[in-house]
Each structure stands twice: as C-alpha cells, then as structure tokens.
C-alpha cells in the first residue's frame, strides 16, 4: 500500500530545489507560445498552470526520437565498431498524467521482451516519475475504459493529487521513497482525505475486455477499411503516443565511417512493412489502421498481459483529421 502524505505548495518548491540539488533535471509541462510540451524547469512556478496534457508524450525521455545504437570507422578491408552507451541523464518527469505514466510499462514490455534493450533500460533507470492526477478531462480521454483512471498509480513513483491548497502525495515505489527522502520533512501525515473526491470523473467509454475478445473475429471485417477512409496515413498518432514503441533503424555514413540510428516509426506508413521486392503485407490504409488497433488491444494482451493503450487521447488530439480512437473503439465494440 502506498504511503500517503500532504505536500504543500511550499513543500513542492522545496522538493524541486532538493531534486535539482541532487543533480537531476526536472522536465515538466510548459506552454511556450500556447503549445504544451515537456521542458526543463527549475521551480513549480515555471510549470504550465492550466494544461490538460502535453502534445507529445514523455516517452521521448526514455525512447528518444533519434538515438545512436552504434558507430564505426571504415578503412579499406577494415571496420572498427564503436559501441554506443546512452547518456542517461538523471531526470525527474513532473506533472504527467496517470495515463501517460502507465505508458512506460507498455514500452518496457516490448523493449525487454526476451532480450533486454540497454538504451531504454539505462534511461529508465535514471528516471523518476512524479505524476499529477487529473482534475479535468476532455472528450479524447478514455483512461477508465483501459484500466486506468484520473488517479491511477501505475507508472508513477510519486503521485500528486491537487487539493485546494497543495497536494495529496502518494509515495509508490523505491524511487518515490528516494524522492521523498530528498525533502522528508515536507511530507506531512495525511488522514481522512478523500482522494476520489478531488479527481475528475471519467465514466468508462466501452467494455475493453469484450472488445479484446471480439477482435479476432473482426479481423476480416470491412469496418477497418471504412474507418480508415478518412485517415491520411501520417505518423502523428504514433509519435505522440506514450506506448507506441515501433522503430526504424537507419544508417548514416560516409567513406570514413558512420553510425546506426534508431528512430521512431509508425505502422500507419506504407513503407513500414514494404518488402524490397515491392510486396507489402499491409498494403492498404485499412490494414495498417487495423494493425494499430490490434497491436494495442489484441496483440499486447495476448503477448504481454497488458494493453498497449492507456487512453490518454493524445492520438485523437494530434490527428489532423480527427481519427478519434475512442469513437472507433466503441464502434468496433458494437460491430
């Protein structure tokens, strides 16, 4: 069970100072020019006041959009390999929502399935997450349909729930306890606080277990092509998604040497599965859209015992043609 405390606004100020004094950077939602994005901050005052979520997810902290896997130098008949070690900057991510915090587990499931991904793991080890529970939502949110909630603790090391003054603070993990230990006297005993009453209500939008159970039978349905007719096939949904883990490996080199880079990729793009021969197992946008849904709601549960979606709604907000995921899932659940 989590240890629950009260953390005043001044206490949070002190915690920020202590984290920075501990040599860690703090990334938090800020709103430069009206955008909402994660940026380094020094104090809670720099954190955006009225944000719902950032546009991009926090996954970039542990799975950057471009990272080096290795490099090498070339000479005639010779190759000198140089291993790449990720620069894992000690980081605290503050203020992401419980949905997004839960996304790290979905990344972990793939990066560490059978073989362990050093790059992800090194960055993950250097990361602590201070989630902040939700006091409001929008139409894209559906966390409660996928096992989360506005106050869900999964993925957060420390979860803060905003109160009229200060926060209800739940210390959830070893990393959370280490954060607490940076400013121990700021965590005051809490008793009788009704956490649920502080949070926004999000009624479940659909019956996810039923949907997951239905998906195998829907594989050949026209539904996916119909839904995807509007889709323009860009990667916005995948790149803002806190759980989308698919990547590309690209080589960049000249005659003297080069590097092998890992970059975000998207199952929505035609090239993703295109064979050199020209054959493409997922040749239409409908097939690619289906893959996106099935990966998250069928393959993930089957292979990793969890969902590949946290219901944050970022994809819906980022989509240039409003491919509202929740709506499409509801439609599938009723198909």
């Amino acid at each position, binding site marked *: 069970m989590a240890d629950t405390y009260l953390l005043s606004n001044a206490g949070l100020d002190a915690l920020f100072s202590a984290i920075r004094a501990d040599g860690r950077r703090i990334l938090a939602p800020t709103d430069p020019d009206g955008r909402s994005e994660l940026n380094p901050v020094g104090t809670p005052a720099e954190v955006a006041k009225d944000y719902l979520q950032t*546009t991009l997810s926090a996954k970039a902290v542990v799975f950057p959009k*471009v990272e080096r896997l290795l490099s090498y130098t070339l000479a005639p008949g010779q190759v000198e390999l140089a291993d790449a070690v990720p620069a894992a900057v000690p980081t605290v991510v503050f203020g992401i929502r419980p949905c997004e915090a839960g996304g790290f587990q979905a990344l972990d499931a793939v990066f560490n399935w059978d073989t362990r991904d050093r790059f992800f793991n090194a960055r993950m080890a250097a990361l602590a997450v201070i989630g902040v529970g939700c006091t409001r939502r*929008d139409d894209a949110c559906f966390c409660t349909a996928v096992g989360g909630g506005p106050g869900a603790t999964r993925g957060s090391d420390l979860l803060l729930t905003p109160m009229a003054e200060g926060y209800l603070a739940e210390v959830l993990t070893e990393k959370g306890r280490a954060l607490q230990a940076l400013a121990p006297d700021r965590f005051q005993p809490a008793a009788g606080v009704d956490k649920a009453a502080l949070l926004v209500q999000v009624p479940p939008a659909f019956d996810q277990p039923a949907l997951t159970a239905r998906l195998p039978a829907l594989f050949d349905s026209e539904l996916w092509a119909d839904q995807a*007719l*509007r889709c*323009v096939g860009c990667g*916005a949904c995948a790149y803002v998604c806190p759980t989308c883990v698919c990547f590309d490996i690209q080589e960049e080199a000249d005659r003297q040497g080069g590097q092998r*880079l890992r970059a975000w990729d998207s199952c929505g793009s035609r090239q993703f599965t295109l064979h050199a021969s020209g054959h493409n197992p997922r040749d239409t946008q409908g097939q690619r859209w289906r893959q996106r849904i099935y990966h998250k709601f069928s393959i993930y549960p089957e292979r990793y015992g969890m969902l590949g979606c946290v219901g944050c709604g970022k994809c819906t907000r980022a989509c*240039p043609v409003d491919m509202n995921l929740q709506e499409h899932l509801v439609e599938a659940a009723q198909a």
Partner: protein
Amino acid sequence: MELIEKAKQLLETGAVKAVLGFEPGTHGGRRPAIVRRAERAARLVFDPGCAQNLASYVTRKEVKRLGRLAVTARPDTLRALLQLMAERQLREEDVLALAVDAGGQVVELETAQAMEEHLALEPKELPARDRELMDRLRRMTREERWAFWQKELSRCVKCYACRNSCPMCYCEHCTMDCNRPQWVPVPSHALGNLEYHMVRAMHLAGRCVECGDCGRACPVGIPVHLLTFNAEESVHAQFGQRAGASAKLDYALSTFRPDDKETFIR
C-alpha cells in the same frame, strides 16, 4: 440544410458515388467525412469551422476507387482541384465541387471553367496571422531567421502529417521514401528535418495553393506552411503565375522565359 439536400440528391441519383464533406468531430470541431449513402448525408455540415482542404482526398487510392466525387469546397479547395487537373492528376468529369456563392447559396461547379469563374470572385489573400509572421520573418536578419527555423524545426518528429495532408502531395513514391540514393536522412534529427522541409517547400513551389493545411496538420505547431507560402509567393513575384488559378497551367519550374529576370547570377 441545402448542402445536405444536394448531397442526398447527388447520391440518390448516382451522379456521384461519394460526397467529401465535413461532420462534427471531437471537441466541437469539424472533420472530413466521406459520405457514400444518402441516408448518411444528414450529418454533413459546412460552416467556417470546416477548415480543411478536402482536395487532398481525391487522389487517394482508396477514395478514387469509390467513383465520381462531390467535394465540399472552399476557395482553396477549388484551387487545389484545378491545380490537380493542371497536373493531370484529376479529370474534370471525375469530380464536382459544392461551393458557396456570395449570396450564401450552395452551388454545384461541374467544370473547371465554372470553378475558375467562381474563384475569380475571391482574390487570394493570406490569413492576417500568417501574413504578419511572414513579414516579421522577412524583416529579421538572416541569422535570426536561421535561429527561428532551427528552433521550430527541432520539434519536428517527421510524422509527415504536413505532407500527407497536402492536396498536392500525391506522389506514390515520395522523395522522402527513396533510399537509392538516400536523398534525405530518415531520422528527425536537425539535418533530416531541415532537408525534409526544404525539399517539401521546393517541391511545392509553383504548386502550393496556400491553403495552409500542412501547418494546420502539424501536431507540434511548426508553421511549416510559411515555407511553401514563401516558395509560392516567390514564384508569383518572379514568374507572375499562381498555382490553382486554372486547370491549364504550366508548372512554373518546368518551363521558362528567355527574359526571366534575376539579380544574382554573375
């Protein structure tokens, strides 16, 4: 609503196989709707919130396959349809436009000529916000402009929402997807992003109808549309033609005049 009636009638008579329009979306917004059955036409709306250029759908394989299309069109949509005809990507008989005339009436524009005439009443002007930012950028020193774009492009994740939303980006095999040679680096690092946006703007010079959908599509709010606007304005200023003005327009960069005037060649 008049548009709904028109859409129903077009679908019922079989005059078109689908109507490209708008429907209410998330957060009270408007989103593209591809209506194939008359009974589904009731959800169509057409108001100032309907910002997208639906011409981007008419070249998509899955939409083309449906048959003749009616496209709910704002002026930029008409320009894009005409430009697609000029580039032999769209046949006049495969599309009709549903536009709103000065009196607020929905009109069917069945020919390129009708579209051209409709457009002649609507002078092309950039939205004030874009105009201001363009002017501000041009007043900057070169170094400031570099810093501006480097900061903006550093957010690019190469999701290609800008490309895929563009009515003129219809190529089956985009330069970005070409790897022999690898013209533009795939990853969205600084060089990859700069080169991508440079190529995109150059490939749209003389073809951009200045609808701004690329900028609207960008999930991280990069004003990428200003790059293609600039290229298009450069074509207009120097060669006196505008993309989308007519269904019979030579591509500015595959033609020339012996007396083209420049100021920099030595």
